[in-house]
């Protein structure tokens, strides 16, 4: 892996070299260093090398702490790779080592990813300390192994871009009336399935309603859109997903089905196991079962207290109550969405290529991405331009003030980054003969048409 010639190196995408978690308190004495390591990827690495690498990280963190006691080093950039240090809980360290894509350029995408990893870990496993309370280091190690074994496979560093940095939520555009209908549906469902604690509603993989707090929803959204939904796309495309269940007498025809939990409700042996998630870890620390149920493009997540074990009867009841109504609602949304699209005329290809992100509600919008899945990022612009976007973003994060950056790229494209209060907008213009003033005017025009309903400074 390391034996790559300089000539070929340029073509290598960034890649994950190693990822490990340790706690220096677990093996403070000499000869016990191995105990510090809670998780190490790749596992095949020789024990001594593991210990060496962990020791090095420990040393770097300790050393840099002398300069900045409250904010120890977050990353270390070397010629070949970059290391990220993250301390999600006191004395628990997560370290990720990423190979640089090119010698002269560096990816800034790594940092947030470590943080998301931690968040997603949190969502599915709760805190490290909680796991320790549950069963000591052994349980913690088992859980880490189980989680990261799967998780690291879904990590595709080469396709990470600005959107991964934001970790935003794409909201489904909807008129007020349809939105209220969805509200009404959710409230009625929560009432009749009285054990539901929180509900989230998505359409076309975009969020419409979250009963969870924003931070928890952000992680759940990422899990749903990058992991759970993609896994179910294939059967849907294959047409195996339309079980109009007319065979059950008295059952209304509907398209509802469980994405988590029982696959076949008619099977009396069907397993009603749902993934467990942990939310509000800062204060109330709630453990929940995640039920994801989908009809056509509408997906609804019901979260119920983990102390209750949903039975097959419950699942059948849920299916019979939610299924028909969700099916009707899904077709309502689809119809309304098409009407709105026709009215606003947004069916046409957008003239501008832009990425918008609002830190306040995590709303993201991109006309650059044709398709974004964890493994493929299909953008309509050159990766070099995406890189510039990343660079502008990292400039913005260093500044508190509102600012605007206009870049003329080598390829005759103009790239504009604007930051207003909590919002960021990145525009790519293909007008090679335009001057700075004209580019500025173009962006103003875009803001006036696309963002006229928000306060966005010119």
């Amino acid at each position: 892996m390391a034996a790559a010639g300089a000539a070929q190196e340029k073509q290598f995408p960034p890649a994950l070299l190693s990822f490990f978690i340790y706690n220096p308190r677990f093996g403070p004495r000499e000869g016990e260093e191995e105990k510090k390591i809670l998780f190490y990827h790749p596992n095949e690495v020789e024990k001594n090398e593991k210990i060496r690498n962990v020791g090095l990280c420990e040393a770097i963190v300790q050393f840099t702490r002398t300069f900045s006691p409250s904010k120890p080093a977050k990353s270390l950039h070397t010629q070949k790779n970059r290391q990220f240090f993250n301390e999600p809980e006191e004395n628990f360290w997560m370290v990720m080592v990423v190979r640089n894509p090119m010698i002269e350029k560096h990816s800034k995408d790594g940092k947030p990813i470590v943080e998301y990893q931690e968040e997603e870990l949190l969502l599915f496993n709760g805190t490290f300390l909680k796991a320790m309370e549950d069963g000591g280091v052994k349980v913690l190690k088992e859980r880490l192994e189980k989680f990261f074994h799967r998780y690291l496979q879904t990590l595709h560093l080469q396709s990470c871009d600005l959107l991964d940095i934001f970790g935003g939520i794409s909201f489904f555009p909807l008129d007020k009336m349809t939105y209220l209908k969805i509200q009404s549906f959710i409230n009625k469902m929560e009432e009749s399935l009285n054990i539901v604690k929180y509900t989230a509603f998505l359409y076309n993989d975009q969020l419409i309603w979250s009963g969870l707090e924003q931070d928890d929803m952000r992680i759940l959204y990422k899990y749903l859109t990058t992991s759970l939904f993609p896994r179910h796309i294939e059967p849907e495309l294959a047409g195996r997903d339309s079980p109009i269940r007319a065979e059950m007498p008295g059952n209304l025809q509907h398209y509802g089905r469980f994405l988590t939990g029982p696959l076949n409700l008619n099977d009396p042996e069907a397993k009603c196991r749902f993934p467990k998630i942990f939310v509000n870890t800062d204060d109330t620390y709630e453990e929940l079962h995640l039920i994801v149920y989908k009809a056509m493009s509408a997906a609804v997540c019901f979260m119920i207290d983990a102390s209750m074990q949903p039975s097959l009867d419950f699942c059948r009841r849920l299916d019979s109550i939610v299924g028909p109504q969700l099916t009707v609602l899904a077709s309502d949304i689809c119809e309304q969405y098409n009407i709105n699209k026709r009215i606003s005329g947004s069916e046409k290809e957008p003239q501008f290529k832009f990425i918008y992100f609002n830190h306040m509600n995590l709303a993201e919008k991109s006309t650059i991405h044709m398709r974004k899945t964890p493994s493929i990022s299909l953008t309509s612009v050159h990766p070099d331009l995406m890189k510039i976007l990343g660079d502008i973003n990292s400039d913005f994060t260093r500044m508190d003030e509102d600012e605007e950056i206009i870049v003329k790229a080598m390829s005759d494209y103009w790239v504009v980054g604007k930051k207003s209060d909590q919002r960021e907008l990145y525009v790519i213009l293909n007008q090679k003969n335009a001057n700075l003033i004209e580019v500025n005017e173009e962006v103003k025009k875009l803001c006036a048409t696309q963002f006229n309903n928000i306060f966005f400074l010119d």
Partner: protein
Amino acid sequence: MSEEEEDYYLELCERPVHFEKANPVNCVFFDEANKQVFAVRSGGATGVVVKGPEDRSPISFRMEDKGEVKCIKFSLGNKILAVQRTAKTVVLPEKRSLKLLKSQNINVNWYMYCPESSVILLSTTVLGNVLQPFYFRAGTMSKLSKFEIELPAAPKSTKLSLSERDIAMATIYGQLHVLFLRHHSRTSNSAGAEVVLYHLPREGVCKKTHILKLNRTGKFALNVVDNLVVVHHQDTETSVIFDIKLRGEFDGTITLHHPVLPARSIQPYQIPMAGPASVTSQSPVPCKLYSSSWIVFQPDIIISASQGYLWTLQVKLQPVVNLLLDKGRLMDFLLQRRDCKMVILSVCSQMLSESDRGTLPVIATVFDKLNHEYKKYLEAEQNYTMVVETGQSRSNPLLKRPVRTQAVIDQSDMYTHVLSVFTEKKEIPHKFVIAVLMEYIRSLNQFQIPVQHYLHELVIKTLVQHNLFYMLHQFLQYHVLSDSKPLACLLLSLESIYPPAHQLSLDMLKRLSTANDEIVEVLLSKHQVLAALRFIRGIGGHDNISARKFLDAAKQTEDNMLFYTIFRFFEQRNQRLRGNPNFTPGEHCDEHVAFFKQVFGDQALMKPTTF
């Protein structure tokens, strides 16, 4: 006992008309047109007393006893008295002449007149079941198309088979109906008697429209109260009510109805004891209800000649609430009643109470029914205003301002009597409170009724109280809570507990497009002086702003470079507007000029440029 009492949904009016009871020397007559009772003593020689339900003082007079009085009536306005003593003569005590306006020759078995609608019904043919209606208006008489009442079974003989006792006429929901009480006949397989309703329009043919199933046999009497058909049953001493607007079983032409509520007696009635003060210790006497001496007149009159009382029959709505458990049907019923408002509001409060809580689908149904009625009124009102404003009202003299009935329950009624009280209750889970408020807002939107600001405020208040800021954020994001200045200000005030409220508020002010001054104030208060200036320049208002205000704000930031920039901007504005960069005394900027000189030196001031 109170439970029992609450069950009676029919009652006799509190203040009946009292008259001298009928006896061999006192004859009692009732005139349906004026609703007056005539007590004629000794053929009128010892006095005639006339009383009506609305008359404050009775009319008394004497007249000569010229034999038995068969019928006695006043004309409208009590101007002319007519007395009938023989089968073929009518006497008018004063000398008057009558003019024959029009005549029709028909063989008539009996007639029936409905004063409310000025329609007379004549029973013709041998069986008597072909009815010929005439309509009187402004001195003319017009013949309406005749119709046949279907008799229960083919009559064996050719004798009169339709009695006037089984026919009534009444206006129900503004339409004249002929009610036919069809008794149970052995040949038909129906379980009991039924009331058949024929709709008799001014124009067009009379059609059989509704059948009211009584499911019992015996002696019946009909009343119509508040557009409800009341059927009294003497054998069981109970009554049932029918509402033809409630959904029944429709077969394509005729709708079959069952009683709205289980049969109940009219509420027991105590006859107040009148008499000398010495005997007042006597308790009131219970009145015998459904007595055989009762005579029933349309639409709502019950007379007991033997006891000397005339009552109007009334419907009590409160007991209906407990008898009609289907809330949707209950609402349909209540919305058609005259004095329904407070009862409806109490039903709403009840279904939101913790002890008697309705499910959300039921609550949604009730809200939809209320708002359907509310919207109908708003639309009528809007149409009326439009017609008046465009001056079309002169060409349409029949145009009337729509009447606001009690069934119109608007947002303010709901807010005052139901929702504001409901949201204050601590014992109700906030999830339910929010669900109910959203359901009401959903229903209003569904009927395209603009939602009032105070409802939005109620939602926000509830969300804020329970720290549900992210929920609030999402509602605002989808514009469920409409933009308004008060709402934007409310959001601003939430910034300290929920920072994103600041952005939400600014966005809202921006969308309102009438709140630019507010936006500048908000930005200045956050020391975003440059942002404020750029904003006002962006909308082209920078020539009219106060320099002093911006310079003050810039100075407060203690950022000298910012102060410099702002100062320079206004110098340039001065130059552009007045050809001189100096501030005028009216701008009150001396203090800032001095500060500028102190920090940056005199030479930093902009020099006047001349061209």
